């Protein structure tokens, strides 16, 4: 589990580099995090079996497994039961950190696009806008032709989260659907679990009303 957290943290850390010289450098960690995470998840189910817990030795599989038991602990900080951290659009899950091309294609024709090439490198971060939905991608560090999802933004009231919250809704609407936030201030409320987060930002002038919603990776 430690490994997983570190990877997610690294990924997140490097992802913030996205806004660097326009591009980013992102991350070996991003893809290793997803693979490690996958490994750990697949074995988590068996983590109570003696083999998995004890054989933290030879086998990489077993190693992954030994990381797994802590999993259940970390997910306890998720607030309400059924919050989803992957935004679903057109029946397609948009998973932050995962390859982007197929997802972008499934979203249909975008209204606007902005390209931000990485400094010095060939990869490019992309900002696609589909109505009120903005999807941001970044290039994988090792394979700059591979784009990964960086962030999903809900910009206006035409799009709502999987739980039905949209821009313009109030703080009370949010709490009713999502429960107590993991973290909140006067300007935002955040729900997080397993290195992912959904963040609700409130209007400065009208701090009861949501002005933007962001699905992202969090920095641990």
């Amino acid at each position: 589990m430690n490994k997983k957290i570190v990877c997610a943290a690294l990924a997140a850390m490097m992802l913030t580099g996205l806004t660097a010289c326009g591009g980013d450098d992102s991350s070996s960690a991003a893809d290793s995090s997803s693979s490690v995470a996958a490994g750990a998840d697949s074995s988590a189910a068996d983590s109570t079996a003696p083999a998995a817990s004890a054989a933290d030795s030879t086998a990489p599989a077993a190693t992954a497994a030994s990381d797994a038991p802590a999993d259940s602990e970390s997910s306890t900080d998720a607030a309400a039961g059924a919050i989803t951290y992957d935004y679903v659009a057109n029946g397609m899950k948009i998973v932050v950190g995962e390859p982007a091309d197929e997802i972008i294609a499934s979203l249909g024709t975008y209204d606007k696009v902005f390209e931000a090439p990485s400094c010095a490198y060939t990869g490019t971060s992309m900002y696609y806008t589909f109505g009120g939905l903005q999807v941001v991608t970044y290039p994988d560090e090792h394979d700059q032709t591979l784009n990964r999802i960086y962030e999903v933004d809900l910009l206006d009231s035409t799009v709502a989260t999987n739980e039905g919250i949209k821009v313009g809704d109030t703080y009370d609407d949010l709490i009713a659907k999502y429960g107590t936030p993991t973290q909140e201030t006067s300007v935002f409320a955040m729900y997080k679990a397993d290195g992912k987060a959904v963040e609700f930002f409130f209007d400065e002038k009208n701090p009861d009303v949501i002005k933007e919603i962001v699905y992202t990776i969090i920095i641990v």
Partner: protein
Amino acid sequence: MGKKKVILAGAAMVVSAGVLLAAVQRLLQPKYMTDVVEGNLIADYYNTGMDHDVLFIGDCECYENFSPVELWEKYGISSTIRGSAQQLIWQSYYLLEDTLRYEKPDVVVFNVLSMKYGEPQSEAYNRMSIEGMRWSKSKVDCIKASMTEEESFLSYVFPILRYHSRWSEINSDDFKYFFGAEPNFFSGYYLRADAKPAENVPTGTPLTDYSFSDTCWNYLDKMMSLCAKNDIQLVLIKAPSLYPYWYDEWDRQIRDYAEKYHLPYINFLDEDIQAQIGIDYNTDTYDAGLHLNVYGAEKLSDWFGEYLVDRYGLADRSGEKKLAEEWAGIKERYDAEIRRQLENLEKYGNVKGEAQ
């Protein structure tokens, strides 16, 4: 074998192994000539005359937005840029330390975008920002401050430990530039002559925390006191790049800091200043608002040169023969590069001259 002979043979073996390893290391190190030319920016400084009035330090918003050639041509100001891709604030600080070992400029200009990074970011950019530095305590400190978790200090001392796996990617550049790179820059400036209008530039996604990290403030403090100690005027700027997004909340913090310590701070995103400079984001940027092209950079330099002369009375040094000769050489390469890029643009549709 006698004892002496054994020692001699042993020494010979160790030395030849060392030489061989050094040669292989040089071969395997990236040459940054065809791709990712930015990797040579930092080392390029040591080829200059090291007699500068103005030193720019910062990231790509420095080395792509200011044209030292223009500053020289128009105001007789000798300037250089020590910047590299995603140069973090501590890297800028240690480069300032490093530069002060060779010369003492009158004005140091620091671009504040890197205040947003409080942690080491990317190994690749670290390498490009640090490896070009000559060895000194500043470089050692810079490495220590910059290393990401996966990096090791030893691999900066012996880059072969980092680049050994490049054996399968060796190409003609690695042989051609074995003994050193050719100059690609113009006193630290990376020149682009193409244009791409800025459209659909996204506004920043709101952040949960806008405060800069203590690490960054510390290095800004250090930078300030190092300048004060050396009687150098520090000028803080935010370059006119539209992206990455520069938040008002960030701007306020820098403004407060500058006010507190009586430092000048120019935010070139300010609409009044932009109007004075006359930047046109349809023609003066080569990548849709991220960086200026040479036309934009010259406009910006024109404005900034005047500011420097007005404020700090920088003298016109165009009469100094040795300096003038050096700058004439740079200017010649500068013009040639613009011509080359324009020809390529016409022929191939891109400045690099790659067939599409």
